[in-house]
């Protein structure tokens, strides 16, 4: 993974000191809240319901053991001993205090971390496939480009005051594990007929009040040109994005208004100018220097079959169940990718305690794991495990409540913090996730239902990604009472689609029942091994509406 050189290290140290000065000026009254707010937002510091919330950047979701351990330490020292992993692969601490934040930034800088641009109208954390470097269908590690974009977009003088936030995601394979189709810019690494690697670029995807799937604006952008191309898109957006209405300010609205063809034309025009100006945007040497950090670890020559692994599955049912859902094929024989579920039944989805973080860091050291990833579905991934180590690892994970065998199943729910924490929320989401998980806890039933992604948001900002849930739930405020709308048929993968609202919402008492009714309709109508998503796409909303509403 990327390691800071002295330039990167100095940058984050200076940033921490800069913020210390800004906090001091705020507390001394030299800055009003209106003047201070944009400064603290560009360091990821929000004022939420109960306290300040600090959003720590985890570039493309990748952490070393040292970094994970430090996050656990910071959460314990400055916060309440836990953090929340988000749908953008970041970590949120919900109980921060303003005078301590500069010290938190210094502690983060010590392990090459920061909170730069995790809020504000600028380029946010670049997210990428959490199976990067390990997946067998990968063309190239998407984190190389992600790191290049991260550096390029950091305190960019032209693009720090965009009409609105800007989110970029990169995928390294045809399978989309980074939800690139619902990002402001989505980049897919592809190969052309000459065998060259390049980028397919989508623009204008996004969730929130007006969700859209992204449009292709570049079918094959050469490596040498990608920064110029991204800069061109950003410039068109900065110049022409709406500034009159915060709800119409994302690039997706601009694309929708002018059309994909016009967008493509404007981007091409800017792109040509940048190219012709000869400004060497992406020095080949720098690209190679960064790429070198993402070289895969030295893999052992192992055989495909691990007798220990096979034996453990046969003798330990619980382990076998975990393998079934949480272990994924690796491109190297004898290796595997494992998803560590942060969705134990009845707990807060995506939360992780300091104890767990520190214990996980120890496990990483014990099992020789250089990296751990955060996924946009609020789980963690260990990408390069030896199959023969999986049983021993799982037993230790299980003892830490990190061994829940539910990845991709109905209880693997994605949920924003909602009204329990968030100043923007209209309804709580965590309690709904917990209730649904409790209803469906039976593992056999979960396996029978197969892949079923439930995503819950506590408000229209859609941080829970409810638009791309197979079942999406949106919490709203209906005359002062929490109310929940159901959407069906969304997907954030390469078959991207936006969920459709089924009908009137349900109250807190009724929403779990409604979800059970949706699932019951699915089980009655499904063909073969169809997922709920597939059944919905085949039969449409009518049978679901009838079950839920015809009375």
């Amino acid at each position, binding site marked *: 993974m990327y390691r800071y050189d002295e330039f990167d290290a100095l940058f984050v140290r200076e940033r921490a000191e800069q913020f210390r000065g800004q906090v001091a000026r*705020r*507390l001394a*009254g030299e800055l009003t*809240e209106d003047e201070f707010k944009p400064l603290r937002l560009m360091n990821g510091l929000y*004022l*939420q*319901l*109960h*306290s*300040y919330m600090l959003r720590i950047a985890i570039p493309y979701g990748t952490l070393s053991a040292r970094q994970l351990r430090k996050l656990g330490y910071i959460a314990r020292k400055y916060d*309440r001993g836990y953090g929340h992993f988000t749908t953008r692969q970041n970590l949120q601490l919900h*109980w*921060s*205090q*303003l*005078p301590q934040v500069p010290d938190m930034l210094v502690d983060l800088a010590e392990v090459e971390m920061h909170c730069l641009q995790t809020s504000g109208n600028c380029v946010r954390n670049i997210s990428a496939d959490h199976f990067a470097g390990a997946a067998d269908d990968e063309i190239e590690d998407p984190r190389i480009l992600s790191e290049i974009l991260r550096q390029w977009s950091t305190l960019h003088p032209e693009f720090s005051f965009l009409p609105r936030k800007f989110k970029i995601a990169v995928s390294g394979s045809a399978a989309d594990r980074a939800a690139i189709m619902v990002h402001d810019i989505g980049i897919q690494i592809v190969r052309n007929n000459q065998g060259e690697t390049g980028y397919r670029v989508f623009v204008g995807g996004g969730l929130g009040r007006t969700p859209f799937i992204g449009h292709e604006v570049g079918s094959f952008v050469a490596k040498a040109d990608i920064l110029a191309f991204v800069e061109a898109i950003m410039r068109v957006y900065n110049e022409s994005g709406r500034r009159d209405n915060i709800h119409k300010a994302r690039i997706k609205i601009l694309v929708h208004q002018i059309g994909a063809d016009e967008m493509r034309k404007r981007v091409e025009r800017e792109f040509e100018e940048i190219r012709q100006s000869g400004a060497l945007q992406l020095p080949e040497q720098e690209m190679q220097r960064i790429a070198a950090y993402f070289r895969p670890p030295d893999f052992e020559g192992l055989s495909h079959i691990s007798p220990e692994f096979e034996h453990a599955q046969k003798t330990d049912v619980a382990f076998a169940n975990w393998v079934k859902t949480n272990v994924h094929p690796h491109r190297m024989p004898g290796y595997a990718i494992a998803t560590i579920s942060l969705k134990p039944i009845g707990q*807060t989805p995506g939360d992780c305690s300091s104890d767990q973080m520190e214990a996980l860091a120890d496990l990483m050291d014990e099992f020789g794991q250089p990296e751990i990833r955060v996924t946009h579905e609020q789980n963690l991934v260990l990408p390069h495990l030896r199959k023969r180590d999986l049983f021993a690892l799982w037993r230790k994970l299980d003892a830490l409540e990190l061994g829940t065998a539910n990845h991709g199943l109905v209880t693997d729910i994605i949920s924003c913090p909602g*009204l*329990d*924490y968030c100043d923007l*929320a209209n*309804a*709580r989401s*965590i*309690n709904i996730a*917990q209730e649904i998980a409790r209803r469906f806890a039976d593992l056999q039933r979960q396996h029978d239902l197969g892949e079923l992604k439930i995503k819950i948001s506590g408000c229209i900002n859609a941080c829970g990604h409810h638009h791309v849930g197979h079942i999406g739930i949106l919490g709203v405020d209906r005359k*002062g*009472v*929490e109310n929940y709308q159901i959407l069906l048929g969304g997907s954030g993968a390469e078959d991207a689609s936006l969920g459709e609202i089924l009908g009137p919402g349900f109250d807190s008492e009724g929403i779990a029942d409604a979800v059970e009714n949706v699932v019951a309709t699915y089980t009655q109508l499904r063909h073969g091994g169809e997922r709920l998503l597939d059944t919905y796409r085949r039969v449409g909303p009518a049978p679901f509406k009838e079950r839920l509403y015809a009375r």
Partner: protein
Amino acid sequence: MMPQVLTANRLSVGEVVYWNAAKGWVRHLHEAEVLADDKAEDVLKGAGVRSVQERQVVGVYLFEVRVKDGSIVPVKTRETIRAAGPSARRDLGKQAD
């Protein structure tokens, strides 16, 4: 209009506080001063604005309450949660005090 309470977050530590003219900014809702609707705006513009200028608090606003059997009960769920702490973590926030 209903009776109201003036609330904010402390500038430094960020915690939720409520206004009571006799005590200043207090931590618990039950210690807050219930403001009759005609007085509330004045308190917001007076003590509220002053407290922001003096850098004690940020995000000052009024919210509606009912008084039931001597208890101050917020009308909105959001304020119930602000007063108590996250319902998902009963061991955190003021509810755990």
